[in-house]
């Protein structure tokens, strides 16, 4: 053994150097992007734009709409993430793919689709489409011997939507007309900002919650169920407390995503100063009026907010929570 020669191994430094070069080049680009904004605006210009009443309204509306979107996203993503994580059902891959559509679509299309849905499609057609969709899902589920309760629920929903379709038949009002009548106008209204931010933000929150639930062993629910819980009680008493950090992470992710949303807001809610303007649209408006320093100052504010929220997510993930 002592006569054995040491095997020759090629040095590690070229590979290490390659990694460092790629990381440095990428980080360098990001730093240059931030630096470019910093060099475009002086403290006095930044202070001036931040004191502008319209911009202050925009900042407030950004915080309110992003928070509302984050809360809505969490409320939707928790049950959807749990269902996808825990239940094996026929068509799960289809549902999973469908939920990713808002992430894959160009943002403008989300806004355009909302605009058409609320202003061009009569409610009877909306209900008809939902009735058709649920009926197809029910027939497909029944053909594949799916869960009876779910199939009955789908059939019931199809009947309900079908009846609503008849109720609304002949009405010339748009969906926007109906929601405006009950006090929740959407198109070119601050509420529309939330609806425009929601599809993409919720899609990210669903991904986060699904990963969270995947990381929580189903054994917790199983043990709770042997102790007398039903599935719902096991979820509320055992799984939800375990998913706490994941829920915060999903909310933060949705908040950050909503902050960066621009296209759908511009198309569906508009960019009216002092009304539907949020930070992303403020940057666009400042560029349009040729105020580059103002746009750069607002960009820096958005970068600061985005980095802060991402740091919160990283901190939560780093503490070993189910994130």
């Amino acid at each position, binding site marked *: 053994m002592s006569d054995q020669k040491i095997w020759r191994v090629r040095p590690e430094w070229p590979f290490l150097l390659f990694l460092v070069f790629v990381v440095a080049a990428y980080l360098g680009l990001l730093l240059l992007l931030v630096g470019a904004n910093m060099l475009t605006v002086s403290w006095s210009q930044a202070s001036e734009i931040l004191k502008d009443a319209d911009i202050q309204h925009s900042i407030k509306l950004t915080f309110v709409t992003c928070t509302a979107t984050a809360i809505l996203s969490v409320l939707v993503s928790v049950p959807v993430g749990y269902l996808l994580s825990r239940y094996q059902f026929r068509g799960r891959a289809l549902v999973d793919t469908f939920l990713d559509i808002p992430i894959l679509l160009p943002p403008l299309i989300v806004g355009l689709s909302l605009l058409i849905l609320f202003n061009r499609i009569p409610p009877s057609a909306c209900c008809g489409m939902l009735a058709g969709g649920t009926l197809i899902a029910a027939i497909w589920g029944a053909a594949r011997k799916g869960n009876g309760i779910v199939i009955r629920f789908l059939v019931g929903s199809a009947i309900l939507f079908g009846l609503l379709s008849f109720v609304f038949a002949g009405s010339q009002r748009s969906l926007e007309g109906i929601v405006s009548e009950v006090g929740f106008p959407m198109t070119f209204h601050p509420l529309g900002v939330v609806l425009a931010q929601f599809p993409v933000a919720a899609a990210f929150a669903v991904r986060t919650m699904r990963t969270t639930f995947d990381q929580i*062993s189903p*054994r*917790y629910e*199983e*043990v*709770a*169920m*042997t*102790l*007398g*819980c*039903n599935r719902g*009680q096991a979820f509320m008493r*055992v799984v939800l*407390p*375990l998913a706490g950090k994941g829920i915060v992470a999903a909310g933060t992710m949705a908040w950050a995503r909503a902050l960066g949303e621009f296209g759908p807001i511009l198309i569906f809610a508009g960019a009216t100063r002092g009304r539907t303007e949020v930070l992303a649209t403020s940057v666009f408006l400042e560029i349009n009026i040729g105020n580059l320093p103002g746009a750069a100052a607002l960009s820096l504010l958005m970068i600061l907010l985005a980095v802060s929220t991402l740091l919160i997510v990283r901190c939560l993930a780093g503490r070993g929570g189910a994130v």
Partner: protein
Amino acid sequence: MSGGILVLEQVTVQAGDFVLSPFSLEIREGECVALMGPSGCGKTTLLETVCGLREGPVGGRVVLDGLEVTNLPPGARGIGLVPQDVVLFPSLTVREQIEFGPKLHGWKPEEIKERVESLARDLGLEGLLSRLPEGLSGGEARRVALGRALALRPQLLCLDEALSGLDEARHDEVLGVIRKMIEREGVTALHVTHSKKEAEAIADRVVVMD
């Protein structure tokens, strides 16, 4: 509630591609049976079927103390489970873990207190009742899981390789505690294990699946 008779009649289970061949077993009241067999033979699948944690068996019946429980939900069967990975609820103290079942079943507070203290005394957990699972050793965690499973005085105690991962000293200690508690509570027990030595030490009878 004392131990009940467990009868498995030609139970067959399908779990994905795996199909458990018809399996029958009868365990007498208060008896402890060790279930052994090679990896992948379906021991845990069978145990989960007994506990109601899988969809009902493809065929056969599960009868506990004369009552067919084949299609009953897990919580209605009167079965306590100590799983392989223990899974103590991370946010609950040791006391809350043991109280979990009795509280759900609406026991009176004094009954719960008495039961928790009695189990803590028998399991050597008196000094740990206010601790969270995070700081417990492997042996302590097993004893808490045993207390949690026994708190409702189940008719059947199911142990799924509950001693795996323990060092020899802790293994023997917890083995002794399980044996003592099975006798003291008079509970019927089904213990899944890989270890022949463990099976012989704990069980009145060893059943081998193939």
